[in-house]
């Protein structure tokens, strides 16, 4: 079974707007990662956040982790058409370091 589940399944916004997608999981984790997948560059790692961290930034990306709610969010600020892609969270949990991917959020950014 897949550990992380992204929400929403699909998101459509205009260029320049912010995009927020969420990931919920069921059991305790060690680490949570966000990946992006598009047809041009395949699956690319964005950010890793460990269970003892609450927030991380990378450029226009901001990831938060709330272990009490078993959820994470990915915020993309000032979105661009090039951000159009599917975004996946991947978790690895206590006792298993095998990363498990969710079904992803499909983001479309209109120019």
């Amino acid at each position, binding site marked *: 079974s*897949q550990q992380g589940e992204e929400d929403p399944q699909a998101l459509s916004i205009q260029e320049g707007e912010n995009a927020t997608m969420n990931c919920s999981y069921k059991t305790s984790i*060690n*680490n949570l*990662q966000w990946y992006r997948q598009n047809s041009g560059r*395949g*699956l*690319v*790692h964005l950010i*890793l956040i*460990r269970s003892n961290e609450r927030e991380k930034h990378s450029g226009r990306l901001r990831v938060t982790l709330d272990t009490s709610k078993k959820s994470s969010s990915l915020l993309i600020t000032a979105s661009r058409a090039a951000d159009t892609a599917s975004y*996946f969270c*991947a978790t*690895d949990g206590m006792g*298993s*370091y*095998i*990363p*498990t*991917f*969710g*079904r*992803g959020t499909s983001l479309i950014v209109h120019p």
Partner: protein
Amino acid sequence: EAGVAQSPRYKIIEKRQSVAFWCNPISGHATLYWYQQILGQGPKLLIQFQNNGVVDDSQLPKDRFSAERLKGVDSTLKIQPAKLEDSAVYLCASSNRGGTGGYEQYFGPGTRLTVT
């Protein structure tokens, strides 16, 4: 730095035929993963190697799928015989760590398999 290489990029076969995929990880990466990604879903791990040993193959359908990583570098994934439900993209990834989790994986472009 060269990325993860996979071949072929596309393959179309008939059900009950066999097929093999090849992966060359990033140089020096000890950990290698094979994932299956069905359209509309996230990648599902099939098998993880640490050097040439298997770390986890619990989700590999062993009656028809096999994988090997000779000499701890290149890897092949084979399906024999293929079923219609095996139609998917097969992704190979590598990492320079992995035994303790939480490290970035580098993915190859994938092989898109269509079984007719």
